[in-house]
């Protein structure tokens, strides 16, 4: 009944996929390393870097679920990071939470609050075209910054809010934060994986490629985008809820910080926007580097310069990101290997033509 198109591809194309053993093996190794990290490198300076790396890992993975998969680059997700921070600080004082393990219970609460906030925000923002959307997310962030400065009775204005640090001893202080962060990252990655493989994820990817065509084929684009938006906001809220007790204070300019949004974008793009693992790799590498430099050199303006240049370079030279580029290299390697195999087996089944 079916007629196959004659194509020039050989009968069985070589498998381009990295063999499963290598893939799961390397993931396993990475997982073990990450769990053992604070135990092995117990220097608090190093583990502080680790905690920040986890915070960014959760943030970037969550951000990628929306911006990476749908193509709507949101440059204002600092809003949800800030909501997470402020919610945690305000609730901790309002409910008289004992500093320490109990504070972590506020993380799910902040996640829910961030998610709830994301619904009307997303609904409003997703009605416009892509470029206006991007610009609006930035404007949104400034709006929230303004509110944080001005609703002084709630947010403490420019004095910010304080959170009493837990009374853990100095050498293991960072470890609970690190492991909670690691746990959140695992949840974020799992969510990203589930989304990617589901029909919902397929809808997002279709929207990224051609939104109108997707809509004409029955995909409920507004609903799909909104749900992804809310999911990403939830993870940013979680990151904020981890950040606030760790740093101990919440200020408007650091909660709603354009540099934070920039770093999310740079990390995700460098790693590979819209891929599953790319942004996580980008986050781990760049966030660690960022914290290391901040601790060693200080000075926010150097960051802006470095990030600016890095972003320009990535956008110009490798807009797909590093991880997909590496995977392309692997594919080329496989092709070359297969070709060498064919060439070294002369006159086999008349496959080789002049």
């Amino acid at each position, binding site marked *: 009944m079916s007629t196959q198109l004659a194509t020039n591809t050989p009968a069985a194309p070589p498998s381009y996929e990295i063999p499963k053993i290598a893939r799961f093996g390397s993931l396993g190794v990475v997982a073990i390393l990450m769990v053992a990290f604070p135990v092995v490198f117990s220097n608090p300076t190093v583990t502080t870097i680790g905690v920040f790396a986890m915070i960014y890992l959760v943030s970037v993975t969550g951000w990628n679920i929306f911006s990476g998969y749908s193509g709507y680059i949101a440059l204002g997700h600092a809003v949800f990071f800030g909501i997470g921070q402020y919610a945690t600080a305000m609730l901790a004082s309002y409910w008289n939470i004992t500093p320490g393990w109990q504070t972590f219970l506020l993380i799910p609460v902040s996640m829910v609050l961030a998610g709830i906030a994301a619904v009307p925000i997303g609904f409003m923002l997703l009605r416009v075209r892509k470029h206006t959307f991007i610009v609006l997310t*930035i404007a949104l962030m*400034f709006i929230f910054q303004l509110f944080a400065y001005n609703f002084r009775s709630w947010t403490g204005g420019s004095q910010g809010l304080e959170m009493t640090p837990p009374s853990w001893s100095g050498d293991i202080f960072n470890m609970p934060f690190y492991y909670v962060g690691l746990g959140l990252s695992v949840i974020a990655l799992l969510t990203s994986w589930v989304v990617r493989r589901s029909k919902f994820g397929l809808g997002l990817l279709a929207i990224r490629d051609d939104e*109108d065509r997707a809509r004409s084929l029955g995909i409920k684009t507004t609903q799909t985008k909104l749900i992804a938006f809310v999911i990403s906001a939830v993870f940013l809220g979680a990151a904020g809820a981890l950040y606030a007790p760790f740093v101990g204070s919440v200020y408007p300019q650091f909660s709603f910080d354009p*540099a934070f949004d920039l770093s999310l974008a740079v990390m995700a793009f460098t790693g590979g926007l819209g891929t599953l693992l790319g942004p996580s790799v980008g986050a781990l590498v760049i966030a660690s580097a960022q914290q290391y430099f901040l601790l060693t050199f200080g000075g926010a303006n150097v960051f*802006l*310069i470095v990030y*600016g*240049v890095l972003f*320009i370079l990535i956008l110009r030279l490798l807009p797909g990101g590093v991880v997909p580029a590496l995977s392309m290299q692997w594919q080329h390697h496989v092709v070359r290997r297969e070709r060498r195999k064919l060439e070294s087996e002369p006159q086999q089944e008349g496959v080789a033509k002049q």
Partner: protein
Amino acid sequence: MLIAQAVLEGVLVGGFYALMAAGLTLVFGVMDIVNFAIGALIVLGAYLSYTVNVHLHLDPFVSLFITTPIMTVLGFAIYWFLIKPIKTDRVVMSLLTMFAVATLIEGVLDLTFNSGLVQIHASYINNSLKIGGLNFPLIYVLSFLLSAFLLAMLFLVTYRTKFGRSLRASMQNPVAARLVGINTDKVSGITLAIGIGMAAVGGMIFGTTNAFNAASSYDLISRLLVIVILGGFGSVGGALVSAIFMLVVQDVVSVVWSPVWGSTTFYVILIVVLLVRPQGLFGKKGVRAQ
């Protein structure tokens, strides 16, 4: 009276924002890119005028003869090396690139000049004319006149010159424009160069009327974006109306209520407009395209 004064200042300052917003929306209309770096570029222009003013002791208006050519060339260079090579997804990629450029410029400025607030001085800065009971600060009046003059020049160039025809053709239909022999790359490059050259002027105006530092770019860009969104991307008339309107409202609210609420109204208006008419006051209601 106080309100009348506020309206007046809103109009005068609005002229500056109108000029900058016109450049921003024109660049979008011709090239489909959002020049997100305009805020940082204005601050760069301000610092350039400041440096010339401090080291060469030139009047700020005179300094423009130095700063404007520098920034115009910079604008062309940005187009040629960063924007022109973009092949896919122009709008988003160019926006992100300009976002990166803005960050870079801000970082460089902060590193070079530190975060102390400065302002460009001229002997007549604090003079003002008193007409009909209203106070016309001289510097605002001069700036407004300069902005109005440049906007008029922009209008003349766009509607009365051959280049302007090419510009309008590229705006309406880039493919067709290329088919009739218009070098759309050159047109785009020149348009961006003009937009950024105007930022030099804007920088001087901004620098003389405000105390600024590198971080001032955030406030500028967020306001300009709101103005352009409100006016509708691509509509120069919309940008003009919206700039004057927003500034007048902001100033009146600042006076009647408080300066903080003045800034907030800016954004509140944005939200209201978005809910009611997402394409802006004068924007085209298109099918949601890529």
